[in-house]
């Protein structure tokens, strides 16, 4: 035991002395100590700066909030806004300017009428518009996006052309902010960005734009047909949603053409749109498209048929009752039930009780509800 210990001690001593000289060890200790000290110093300075920033923000908040509230509640819009001298100094601080802009935006989102108009005036009077325009010119995407958002919230409609150019920006955030701003300023006319946008419009952005459009009186959309032929499939999908929401029956034929589009999401949206604007003739077209469709679209077509198919379509639906997939069977039965084909279901159940008797019973119960 002692022999082994001695062997290890001597081996370790030999290799330690061979590789690590006293000078090297001293240098190592010095390096490690200086790194540790640097880290401590860096953390101290970082926390100090953070605290200073917080204190400055807090002072700005205490000073500005009440003043802003007083100014925006001013009922005489002709009155000149007087900026107290202490604020002139505060507003030289970019942090204070941004804080004030952010707060004006928060209030602008909450209030309309005189208060909204006062907020806009204050934003311009304090020169914040220049800040936003500077951001708009920035090459940093998030700064540019922030600039667009500020100009849009503060109704700086004269920037429409400059912002319009950004509706097809390669950066997604810049692009979506620009599209939102254009709709905010121009309502339905703002949809002209659909002519130029080559990047995908996300599902979320489509929802946002539709919600935004609800604030405007519906207008004619003469370019809808053109958008339905766009090279950008997400433009077609969005246009189909516009057709659906604003009941554009006049271009039903064009919507039906979308059922033949090579991209599956376009075809699915076309089915959903036809569900809202289609008629019996659409049922024929859907049935023709049915066999080439994927599973999800087949289900959508059967649901659409429940709305506008008629007894001439019974044979197709009866054939689908024999489909090997239970979900398709049920949707076909549902469609039959919805268009007055319960008798056909009963006949099928009489010939083949398993599973059609149960399906017929289920559909009848649904119809009673």
């Amino acid at each position, binding site marked *: 035991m002692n022999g082994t210990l001695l062997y290890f001690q001597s081996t370790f001593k030999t290799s330690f002395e061979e590789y690590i000289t006293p000078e090297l060890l001293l240098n190592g200790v010095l390096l490690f100590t200086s790194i540790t000290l640097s880290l401590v110093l860096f953390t101290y300075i970082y926390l100090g700066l953070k605290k200073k920033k917080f204190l400055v923000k807090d002072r700005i908040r205490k000073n500005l*909030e009440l003043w802003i509230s007083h100014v925006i*509640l001013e009922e005489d819009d002709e009155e000149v806004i007087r900026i107290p001298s202490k604020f002139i100094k505060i507003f030289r601080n970019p942090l204070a300017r941004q804080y004030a802009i952010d707060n004006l935006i928060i209030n602008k989102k909450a209030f309309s009428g005189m208060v909204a108009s006062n907020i806009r005036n204050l934003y311009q009077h304090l020169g914040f518009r220049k800040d936003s325009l500077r951001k708009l010119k920035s090459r940093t995407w998030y700064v540019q996006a922030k600039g667009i958002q500020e100009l849009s919230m503060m109704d700086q409609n004269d920037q429409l052309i400059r912002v319009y150019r950004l509706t097809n920006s390669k950066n997604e955030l810049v692009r979506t902010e620009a599209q939102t701003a254009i709709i905010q300023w121009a309502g339905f006319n703002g949809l002209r960005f659909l002519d130029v946008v080559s990047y995908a419009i996300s599902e979320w952005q489509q929802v946002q734009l539709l919600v935004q459009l609800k604030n405007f009186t519906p207008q004619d959309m003469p370019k809808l047909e053109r958008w339905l032929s766009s090279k950008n499939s997400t433009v077609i999908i969005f246009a189909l949603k516009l057709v659906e929401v604003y009941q554009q029956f006049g271009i039903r034929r064009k919507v039906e053409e979308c059922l033949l589009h090579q991209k599956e999401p376009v075809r699915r949206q076309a089915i959903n749109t036809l569900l809202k604007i289609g008629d019996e003739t659409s049922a024929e077209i859907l049935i023709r498209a049915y066999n080439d469709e994927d599973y999800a679209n087949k289900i959508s077509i059967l649901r659409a048929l429940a709305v506008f198919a008629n007894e001439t379509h019974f044979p197709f639906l009866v054939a689908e009752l024999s489909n090997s997939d239970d979900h398709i069977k049920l949707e076909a039965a549902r469609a039959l039930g919805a268009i007055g084909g319960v008798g056909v279901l009963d006949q099928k159940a009489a010939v083949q009780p398993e599973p059609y008797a149960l399906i017929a019973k289920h559909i009848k119960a649904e119809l009673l509800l």
Partner: protein
Amino acid sequence: MKILIAEDEPLILQTIELKLKKEGYEVIACVDGLDALQKIDSEKPDLIITDIMMPYMSGLEVIRKVKQDIHSKNIPVIVLSTMGQENIVEEAFELGADDYLKKPFSLSELSIRIKKIARQSKLQ
């Protein structure tokens, strides 16, 4: 008339508070639902104006608790909502809310609604 406002955005809260004070109302400002519930209990306001989305306790929860409490169930409630909260507003009405305003709203509109509710309360 004593009005309690629950709104988590300090600047919006302050603007509404200032406006109502200018009109001569006594105002109790609360920054979240929990704060509101405690002050409703201690201050016994004549009207509650509440935002829907608030930290710690939502506006809906505040209405539910107010309307369940025998001491506060008759206090009228105005809900402040935002776009896309239509279903929640419906739920607020089912819980007993009396009126609602969708942001962005005009402060004069809010004043009209308050006066209308004050008149109705007097009639009752």
